[in-house]
C-alpha cells in the first residue's frame, strides 16, 4: 500500500516513502485495511457490558431502540464514554502513583539513585498538603509529602487534597454539582460499578460521575505526577533543543526512550554519560552514545534536560525505519504493539521495561527503581552491543531537524514574564485586559491516522496565533508544533498577530509554549488557576477568555483530559466527535446543556480553521462578559455580530 503524507514534516514523508518501497507495514496501512470501521462502535451504541448482549441500537430508528436490559442509546453511549474516561484517568493516575512510589523510595532509601532536585518546589507542594516546612529537613518534608500524595489515591474521608488548588468559586461549583473528587481510585471504581448491568441508566448522572473521575485525574493523578516529577527530576526552565529524525546520529549509538515516564529514562540519560560506557561504545566503532526521546517520554526529557525529540506518536515505526536506532526502550502508554514487527525488519533492539506493558516476543528488562542504575546500565550495554549489528547500507536518517525552546511551566514562564525574582501573572492578565492578547488556548493531544497527519494541529494553532491568542501546548501537539518551527522565538514574527508579537518580543518567548507531557496538562490547569488568582479576569476559570483543543485526539487519556477541562470550565473542541453521536440527547447535553451547569462544554469540528474560529468566538464571548477593552490591533478573524 502506498500512503503519501500531504502535510507532515519532510522526515516523516521520506520514511513513509521508504516503507512503501520496502513493503514495510505502518499504522497508515493498518488504518486503511480497517476501513470502513464499525458504525455502531463509532456512534457509541454498542454495549458489551453483560452477556445478555452484545446489544446494538439501530441509529436509523427501525431496529432495536433498547438493549436486552432496556438500556437506550443514551444510557449505552454515556456508559461507554464514562468507561473511556475511567480508562484515561487510570492511565494517568497509575503514572502518578508510580512517581509517588519512586519519590518515597528516593527519600527513604539512602542508596537511591534519585534525589530531590527542586527543594523549592517541594516546599510549595508540601504547603498544599498542609505540611510544615519551616526549619525541617528536605527529606523529612519529602517523606511526609510522598505519603500524603499517596493518600489522595485511596482517601477514606474527605476529598482529593491536590484539587484544593483550584479557584474557590470552582471548588464551590463542584461541591454544588456533587462532582468534587473524593479520591482518585474511588471515582474510577465508582464508574466501573455504576456502568455494570442494571445500575445507573440516567445518562446525565453517568456523565456527572465521568466528570468527577476526570477531575480526580486532572487535579489529582496527573497533577501529582507533574508536581512530584518536578520535585524529583527538577522543575523545568526554558531550554533549547532540536526535534525530528535528524537528531539521530549516524556515528553514535542511538537509544530512543519511548513512552510516558521520566523515571527510567532520566537515569538512562545520567548513566549514558559514564565514561566506561562511552569507551565501550568507542570500542565498537561509535563516537558516543546519543539519547533521544519519543512521545511523552521525549517531552519529559526535553523539558528538564533539553534531550532532543525524535518524534510523536505516529512516528514511532518510522523512527525505526531510519535503520539508525540501535535500541528503543519503552515504558508505558502509546507504545504500538506493531513496533515488534518493524523492529524485526531492522537491527533495532526493542526493550520493554514496565511490568504493566509487555509485548509478547519482545525482550523484557524489568525496571525497578531500587536498582535503577544497574538496569539502566544493562539497557545501554545492550544498545552498545547491538551497534555492531547495524547495516550501514540500510541506514537512512533524514537530515531534517527543527530548533525549539521548551521548558515552560506555570511557574517558569511567568517568572520570565514578571521578572527574574518575582513570578507574577500581572503582565499576562494585563495584556489580555488591555486587548493586546485576545486570549489563550491550550492545544494538546494525540496524532491520529484518521485525519491528514499534523494538518489539523498546525492550521488550528497558526490561525489562533494570527489572532493574537497565546498558545500553550503539550503532548504530541507540542512535538508537532516543534517540528514545524512554531516553538522558535522568531516564529512569532512569521505567525503571530501584532499584539502577540509584541509580547513575544518583549519577553523573548515563542508564540507556542511547550508545557510538557500529557500529565503536564495539569500545568495548564495550574496556570488557569493562577490567572484567576492574579485578578481582573473574573472569579473562576469559566470566566477566562480561553479555550482548549485536541484536533487529532485518539486515546482514552485524551477523553479524560478533555473531560477535566470541561469540568474545570473550559470550552474544549476536538476534531472527530466523541463516540457518542448515536445518542442525540447525550450529544446535546455535552455540547450545549452542560455549559449552564459547569461553565465548560465540548465541541466537535473537523475543519481546523473553523475549529479555531469557534474557539475565538468563545474567547470573544468571555471578553465581552468581562467588559474587556476592544482589541488593540485589527484581528484577522472578526466574526460578524
Amino acid at each position: 500500500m502506498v500512503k503519501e503524507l500531504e502535510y507532515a514534516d519532510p522526515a516523516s514523508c521520506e520514511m513513509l516513502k521508504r516503507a512503501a518501497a520496502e513493503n514495510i507495514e505502518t499504522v497508515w496501512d493498518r488504518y486503511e485495511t480497517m476501513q470502513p470501521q464499525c458504525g455502531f462502535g463509532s456512534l457509541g451504541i454498542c454495549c458489551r457490558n453483560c452477556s445478555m448482549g452484545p446489544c446494538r441500537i439501530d441509529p436509523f430508528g427501525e431496529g432495536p431502540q433498547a438493549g436486552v436490559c432496556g438500556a437506550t442509546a443514551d444510557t449505552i453511549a454515556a456508559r461507554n464514554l464514562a468507561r473511556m474516561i475511567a480508562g484515561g484517568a487510570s492511565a494517568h493516575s497509575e503514572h502518578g502513583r508510580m512517581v509517588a512510589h519512586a519519590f518515597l523510595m528516593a527519600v527513604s532509601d539512602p542508596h537511591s539513585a534519585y534525589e530531590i532536585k527542586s527543594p523549592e518546589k517541594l516546599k510549595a507542594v508540601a504547603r498544599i498538603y498542609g505540611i510544615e516546612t519551616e526549619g525541617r529537613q528536605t527529606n523529612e518534608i519529602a517523606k511526609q509529602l510522598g505519603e500524603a500524595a499517596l493518600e489522595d489515591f485511596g482517601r477514606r474521608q474527605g476529598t482529593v487534597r491536590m484539587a484544593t488548588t483550584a479557584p474557590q468559586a470552582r471548588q464551590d461549583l463542584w461541591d454544588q454539582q456533587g462532582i468534587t473528587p473524593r479520591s482518585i481510585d474511588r471515582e474510577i471504581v465508582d464508574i466501573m460499578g455504576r456502568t455494570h448491568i442494571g445500575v445507573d441508566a440516567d445518562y446525565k448522572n453517568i456523565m456527572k460521575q465521568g466528570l468527577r473521575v476526570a477531575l480526580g485525574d486532572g487535579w489529582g493523578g496527573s497533577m501529582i505526577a507533574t508536581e512530584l516529577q518536578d520535585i524529583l527530576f527538577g522543575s523545568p526552565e526554558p531550554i533549547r533543543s532540536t526535534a525530528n529524525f535528524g537528531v539521530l546520529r549516524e556515528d553514535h549509538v542511538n537509544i530512543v526512550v519511548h513512552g510516558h515516564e521520566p523515571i527510567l529514562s532520566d537515569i538512562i540519560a545520567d548513566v549514558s554519560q559514564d565514561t566506561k560506557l562511552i569507551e565501550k561504545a568507542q570500542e565498537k566503532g561509535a563516537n558516543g552514545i546519543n539519547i533521544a526521546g519519543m512521545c511523552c517520554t521525549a517531552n519529559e526529557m526535553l523539558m528538564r534536560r533539553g534531550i532532543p525529540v525524535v518524534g510523536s506518536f505516529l512516528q514511532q515505526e518510522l523512527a525505526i525505519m531510519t535503520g539508525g536506532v540501535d535500541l528503543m526502550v519503552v515504558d508505558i502508554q502509546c507504545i504500538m504493539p506493531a513496533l515488534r514487527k518493524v523492529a524485526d525488519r531492522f537491527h533495532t533492539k526493542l526493550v520493554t521495561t514496565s511490568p504493566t506493558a509487555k509485548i509478547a516476543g519482545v525482550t523484557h528488562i524489568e525496571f525497578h527503581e531500587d536498582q535503577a542504575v544497574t538496569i539502566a546500565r544493562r539497557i545501554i550495554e545492550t544498545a552498545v552491543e547491538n551497534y555492531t549489528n547495524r547495516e550501514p547500507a540500510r541506514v537512512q536518517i533524514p537530515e531534517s531537524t527543527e530548533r525549539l525552546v521548551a521548558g515552560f511551566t506555570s511557574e517558569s514562564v511567568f517568572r520570565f514574564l514578571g521578572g527574574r525574582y518575582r513570578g507574577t501573572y500581572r503582565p499576562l492578565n494585563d495584556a489580555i485586559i488591555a486587548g493586546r492578547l485576545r486570549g489563550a488556548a491550550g492545544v494538546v493531544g494525540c496524532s491520529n491516522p484518521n485525519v491528514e497527519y499534523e494538518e489539523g494541529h498546525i492550521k488550528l494553532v497558526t490561525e489562533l496565533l494570527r489572532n493574537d491568542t497565546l498558545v500553550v501546548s503539550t503532548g504530541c501537539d507540542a512535538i508537532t508544533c516543534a517540528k514545524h518551527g512554531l516553538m522558535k522565538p522568531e516564529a512569532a514574527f512569521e505567525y503571530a498577530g501584532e499584539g502577540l508579537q509584541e509580547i513575544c518580543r518583549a519577553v523573548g518567548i515563542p508564540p507556542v509554549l511547550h508545557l510538557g507531557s500529557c500529565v503536564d496538562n495539569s500545568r495548564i490547569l495550574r496556570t488557569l488557576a493562577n490567572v484567576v488568582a492574579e485578578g481582573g479576569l473574573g472569579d473562576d476559570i469559566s470566566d477566562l477568555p480561553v479555550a482548549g483543543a485536541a484536533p487529532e485526539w485518539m486515546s482514552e487519556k485524551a477523553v479524560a483530559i478533555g473531560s477535566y477541562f470541561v469540568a474545570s470550565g473550559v470550552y474544549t473542541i476536538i476534531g472527530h466527535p466523541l463516540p457518542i453521536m448515536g445518542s442525540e440527547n447525550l450529544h446535546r447535553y455535552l455540547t450545549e446543556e452542560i455549559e449552564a451547569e459547569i461553565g465548560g462544554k465540548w465541541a466537535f469540528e473537523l475543519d481546523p480553521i473553523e475549529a479555531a474560529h469557534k474557539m475565538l468566538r468563545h474567547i470573544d464571548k468571555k471578553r465581552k462578559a468581562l467588559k474587556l477593552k476592544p482589541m488593540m490591533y485589527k484581528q484577522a478573524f472578526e466574526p460578524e455580530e
Partner: protein
Amino acid sequence: MKLMIVINVDKCLGCKSCEMACAVEHSSSQSLLQAIRESPAPRARVSVRQGTGYSVPLQCRQCENAPCVEICPTNALHRDDLESPVVVDHDLCIGCNWCVLACPFGVIRIDSAQGAVIKCDQCAQRVERGESPACVSACPTGALAFKTMDEILEEKREASLVLIQRGLSGGET
C-alpha cells in the same frame, strides 16, 4: 458481465455492518454522522437474519426472470438489461405492494416515508466508480463478495477438483 453479491454464510458474524453501510449509502448525506439525523431516516436494503446456528444477510438476488418486474403494473421496477440490477423508479411506483408479495425472498419492502418500494440496487453509483457495493465493502470478515457468475463457477469447479483429488487419494470416488 453480470456481477452478483454472494454470501459465505460460514463467515457471517451477524454484526450488521452491511445494514448500516447500506442505509448510509442510500441517505442524502452519505455520511454516517449526518445520516443518523436525516428525516426521513435512510433505510437499509439488506437485512441480517438469524437462522438456526447461523446468521446471513439477505438482499435482492437480481433474478433473471424477476417476478417483481413481471408483476409491476406501472413498470416502476425495471432493468436496463439482464446484466443490470433491477431498480425502482420512485416516481412511477404507486406502492401497491404486488412486488412485495411476488418476491420469493422477502427482500422488497415498502418505505412508507417515500410511499414507494425499496430494494437492493447493487449500489449502481459505487459500481460505476469501480467500487464494490457498500455492504460488500463494509463486511469486516469478507462474508459478502461481489463477483461475476464466471468467477463463482470457477471457484466452485476448483473446490470440486479438491474433492475429487481427496476421493482419489482416499481410494473412494
